[in-house]
């Protein structure tokens, strides 16, 4: 069988760190990057006699996230202990939710080839994070490990999709939209590089038409959107080739090797984990009344899905464009403000997705760190529209705006970049150039197109590039036909 004989089935498990001020069960601050073991207490470090007390904001954020993902919010939910041993898990159990998750039966719509596709969300539940192990060299070579418990007790929401995705690109879209939805909902910073957004992929393949799911492989260590796509593509191919060779696939966990761009087996000698889930007796269950859910729903900010529909319907922008414009609430706000000042959404979108993103990425800045305002961009676009500056000039002006934060008009003034669009001025200069190049004029009248280009070039030189080229072409014709 060939690759096109198989269907790829993908599900994603995403962990989102909730951006509460404090950890889930204690008052330690929920912050990233502190010195080892300085952000801990007996509760999050599993000391004898310590007991957990639930941070209300965690539940509030979980409800908000669940609503943003179109989930049902459970009216009764509880915490369970998931038991296993590891040095970064101080209690040797992780408080999680097993059979009564707080959110379930949700969905998220993505766009595949411009058409909407609904990806089901099985459940979202609250759990606590574990700490970190630090090694010298690789985990298999190191003589010892060092344990930092700072991250223990950071509140997480684990979001499990249905296996509804069929291409690596869909999975990437899902993750991007999930990320922006969580950003818009205001529950997480979603920084993959800081670990506040983590993703594991479940990949299997099956012959086309087959209903039963193939053997599922879980892939871990996906640290970017790009790795997610690459890893899924690699793994799907690996599985198809294995099946073609008559191999039996093993249900296992594999890790993505970014360097070698392959997945590798993580299978250990031990048998499958038995987590022995049971209801945590130190934490009373939660009863979530309708009024609480409704009040969270009422105060929900506009989410990417609504914003995308709004932009597509109102401005006729493409699905691809709107997905970029809604990548974060700050980015969308920038767009909306700019359009409010300059009502050509397509132009605004092009400049933001083109020049602005180029500069932001190069300097590794977020939109919130952009030195100029949306109104400044609108001003520049207006100047282009009115012909006050040429398109090429605009790019240089933009670069200067980005670097200095100065408004366009000021830059144009300072650098004398105003595009000459005044007809009389141009005609005067054109006539001088025509007088100085009679042979070329003759050639031009004779039909040689290159001559026109030469004349335009001369005029541009004389005006130091500031002549409006479209206007120059028109005026040359006018002048020449006048004689």
């Amino acid at each position, binding site marked *: 069988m060939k690759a096109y004989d198989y269907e790829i089935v993908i599900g994603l498990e995403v962990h989102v760190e909730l951006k*509460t001020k404090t950890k889930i069960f204690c008052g330690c601050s929920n912050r990233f990057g502190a010195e080892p073991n300085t952000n801990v*207490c007996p509760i999050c470090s599993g000391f004898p006699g310590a007991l957990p*007390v639930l941070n*209300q904001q965690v539940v509030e954020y979980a409800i908000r996230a669940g609503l943003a993902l179109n989930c049902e919010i459970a009216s009764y939910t509880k915490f369970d202990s998931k038991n296993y*041993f590891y040095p970064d898990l101080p209690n040797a159990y992780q408080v999680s939710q097993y059979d009564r998750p707080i959110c379930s039966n949700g969905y998220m719509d993505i766009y595949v080839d411009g058409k909407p596709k609904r990806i089901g969300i099985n459940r979202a539940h609250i759990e606590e994070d574990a700490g970190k192990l630090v090694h010298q060299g690789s*985990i298999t070579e*190191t*003589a010892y490990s060092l344990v930092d418990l700072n991250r223990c007790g950071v509140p997480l929401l684990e979001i499990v999709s249905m296996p509804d995705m069929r291409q690596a690109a869909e999975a990437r879209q899902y993750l991007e939209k999930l990320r922006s939805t969580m950003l818009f909902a205001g529950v997480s910073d979603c920084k993959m590089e800081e670990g506040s957004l983590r993703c594991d992929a479940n990949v299997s393949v099956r012959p086309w038409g087959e209903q039963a799911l193939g053997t599922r492989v879980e892939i871990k260590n996906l640290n970017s959107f790009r790795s997610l796509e690459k890893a899924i593509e690699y793994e799907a191919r690996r599985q198809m080739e294995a099946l073609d060779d008559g191999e039996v696939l093993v249900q296992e966990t594999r890790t993505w090797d970014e360097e070698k761009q392959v997945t590798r087996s993580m299978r250990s000698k031990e048998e499958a984990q038995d987590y022995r889930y049971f209801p945590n007796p130190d934490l009373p269950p939660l*009863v979530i009344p309708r009024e609480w859910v409704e009040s969270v729903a009422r105060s929900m900010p506009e989410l990417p899905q609504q914003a995308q529909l709004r932009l597509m319907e109102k401005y006729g922008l493409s699905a691809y464009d709107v997905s970029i414009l809604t990548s974060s609430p700050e980015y969308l706000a920038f767009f909306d403000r700019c359009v409010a000042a300059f009502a050509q959404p397509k132009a605004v979108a092009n400049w933001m997705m083109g020049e602005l993103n180029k500069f932001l990425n190069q300097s590794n800045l977020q939109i919130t760190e952009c030195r100029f305002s949306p109104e400044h961009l609108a001003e520049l676009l207006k100047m282009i529209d009115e012909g006050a500056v040429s398109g090429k000039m605009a790019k240089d002006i933009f670069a200067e705006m980005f670097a200095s934060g100065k408004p366009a008009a000021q830059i144009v003034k300072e650098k004398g970049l105003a595009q000459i669009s005044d007809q009389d001025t141009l005609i005067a200069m054109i006539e001088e150039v025509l007088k100085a190049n009679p042979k070329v004029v003759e050639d031009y009248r004779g039909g040689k197109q290159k001559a026109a280009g030469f004349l335009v070039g001369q005029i541009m030189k004389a005006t130091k590039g500031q002549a409006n080229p479209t206007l120059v072409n028109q005026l040359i014709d006018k002048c020449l036909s006048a004689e």
Partner: protein
Amino acid sequence: MALTIKEVEHVALLARLSLSEDEKVKLSQQLGAILNYADTLNTIPTDNVEPLTHILSVHNVFRADEVQPSMPREEMLANAPLVEAGYYKVPKIM
């Protein structure tokens, strides 16, 4: 009805107890006897009975999302068998 040695070893692995051969034999008998005794529970019908997981019928015990000072690192490490540079130090994984 004793547990088999294999069953004892499986449970000991889950519980991270490296039992001696002697201990395994003793436990296979003792645990068997206790579980046998526990089997008397199966004589009671409990089909429509809700398990009692929490004694107090209390729900929604919360605290406010306000930062409290963490415990100083020296105190957190004071009882540790082995530390290095502010970390707890443990032998390699494998």
